[in-house]
């Protein structure tokens, strides 16, 4: 490695140390101490100074995008769907009290659950608490959904990938990207 290469590596490593400060500066969240430290580095480092300048321009461009407004149709459409959703929700809740068939089905389901429960208890004795008992819970699960049960939101949220990182991998965090940055800052 020549001495100029050595210097360049050394410089890149130093610049890397300033990435967090550069990020904070661009985001407008840097504190006075951080800004002073960064200022000293930028006075001596044209590459980082250019990086800050360009990242600030990028930020201005994204911030200046016009705000898009929905059409006038959104609100009434949403109001209608909300009311429809509430109606179907109430239906699921209280539907079994209205048509006789549903009441009958609920009764049969209840009897089935009880019968399975009794069967399991009879097979394993009242003291049996191992495996099969939990299976009964699964078999009896077609009970009507309760609005008080934890709503499915958390499942959706975790399914999204942002929670568990199942989307494409973060291609670059601080370390991985700084090589690239250093490359084009040269």
């Amino acid at each position, binding site marked *: 490695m020549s001495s100029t290469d050595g210097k360049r590596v050394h410089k890149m490593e130093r610049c890397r140390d300033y990435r967090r400060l550069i*990020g904070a500066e*661009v985001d407008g969240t840097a504190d006075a101490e951080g800004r002073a430290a960064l200022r000293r580095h930028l006075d001596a480092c044209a590459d980082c100074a250019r*990086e800050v300048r360009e990242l600030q*321009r990028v930020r201005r461009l994204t911030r200046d995008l016009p705000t*898009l407004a929905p059409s006038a149709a959104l609100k009434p459409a*949403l109001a209608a769907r909300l009311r429809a959703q509430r109606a179907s929700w109430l239906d699921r809740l209280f539907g079994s009290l209205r048509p006789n068939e549903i009441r009958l089905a609920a009764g049969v389901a209840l009897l089935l659950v009880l019968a399975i429960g009794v069967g399991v208890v009879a097979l394993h004795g009242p003291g049996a608490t191992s495996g099969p008992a939990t299976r009964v819970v699964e078999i009896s699960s077609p009970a009507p959904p309760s609005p008080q049960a934890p709503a499915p*939101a958390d499942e959706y*949220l975790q399914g999204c990938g942002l*929670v568990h990182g199942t989307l494409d991998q973060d291609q670059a965090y601080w370390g991985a990207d700084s090589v690239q940055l250093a490359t084009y800052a040269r």
Partner: protein
Amino acid sequence: MSSHQVATLVQRARAGDVVAFEQLVQPYLGRLYNYLARMVGDASDAEDLTQDAILRAHRAIGSFRGGATFQTWLYRIATNIAVDALRRRGRQKVKVTSLDDPLQSEEGLVPREVPDTQRDPLELAEAAELHGEVQQAIASLSPKLRAVVLLFDMQGMSYEEIAEALDLPLGTVKSRLFNARARLRERLAPYVGG
């Protein structure tokens, strides 16, 4: 809206009061739409997704805990909706052409600001072109980076709020924001270089 008002409305919404729920989400509708439109790059999809997000929030209102603010909770749902939609559509096939095209105004793509009549048509066309370029650059980001940069720059959320909305550590929010900007800088080099 004070946190007490929010809590009251949440309670009423949980009891099935649709009007209370509407009052709860009303202040966020426009911003959610704007966020989703920028996330998926398509105006009419964004209307559907805004509805989907609100309907999902309505179904899930029972699981809303006071810990998260209502706003971050809504953005969390909206982000999941957008990511699901992008995944369904096939990654990176984001339609980006229609967003800032002034000719599309009848389809609901009207920028909320009053148009600046001082500016001449050529200038307006140039601005629209630049906005199109920026939107395309944003669309080229992975949804994870896209969400963070939109929430910070367009929605004005803090690192902490984004961390809560996306369920990420604070450091990850900052690094994603930095990485997003670095990529945008590459994409937008002709506009930010020099």
